[in-house]
């Protein structure tokens, strides 16, 4: 089955990339965008037997840096 792990910066952590992307969006002439935060999406193809606890461990030990990032796991 497919699992998606969404990794995003914690609130309060400055995101220079998001800010640059925001500027670029405005530069293209789009109005109304208030903020942009850049993150990452990992798609894992896993066996049915892989548990939520194991996925949590993969995310917290490697996919996200828990000092600056949060993650959300989604089974698709």
């Amino acid at each position: 089955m497919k699992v998606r792990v969404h990794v995003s910066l914690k609130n309060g952590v400055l995101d220079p990339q998001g800010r640059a992307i925001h500027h670029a969006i405005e530069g293209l002439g789009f109005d109304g965008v208030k903020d942009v935060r850049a993150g990452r999406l990992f798609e894992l193809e896993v066996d049915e037997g892989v548990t939520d606890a194991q996925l949590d461990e993969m995310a917290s030990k490697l996919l996200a840096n828990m000092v600056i990032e949060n993650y959300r796991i989604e089974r698709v």
Partner: protein
Amino acid sequence: MPFRSAVITFPGSNCDRDMAVALEQVSGTAPHRVWHGDSTLPAALDFIAVPGGFSYGDYLRSGAMAARSPIMQAVIEAAGKGVPVLGVCNGFQILTEAGLLPGALMRNAGIRFVCREVKLKVENTQSLFTAAYETGQVIRIPVAHHDGNYFADEATLDRLEGEGRVAFRYAESVNGSVRDIAGVLNAAGNVLGMMPHPERAIEPAHGSSDGRALFESAIKGLVGA
């Protein structure tokens, strides 16, 4: 007793040779060169250096893959036993990713790669790595990084400051690091991570030799020379 040091090389390291040259020039003994896939370090080491570069192509996050490589498990174990470990640039990123130092190195606030000589203030001269400097001394050391923007939460920063674990601070605007932090020590004081490159400033031909005192501090402190 010859000084026994090791320089770790990962795929993508590019400051390992400079680090080895600096250690040999200052200590008189060439360091052991250790490959990332090795799972053991040479015995009875006095010093381990984790050099700069772009280990594993900076995949995932700078330093993230290297921090989980076989040799880093041995480095973590050695650090726990008190062996001095210096991480420079990508080495600093690797040490934070490995959990040996607090905080994280994020993309520079100005987005751009910064490659130039910067001024640093020496904040702590009591450490193994900084004893040969004077408190508050301003030194010139080159930086070359894209992800040098140090971040830690306020509680961690207050603890670092309170315990004298901020070794170096930028004396000018460089990358957006919180509280201008350029280098931090672990709680025991035997692990130092810093973004600037002291190994690129050890002889007058480099434009600055202010980095030499860092190696002299460590080597004198360790062999009592």
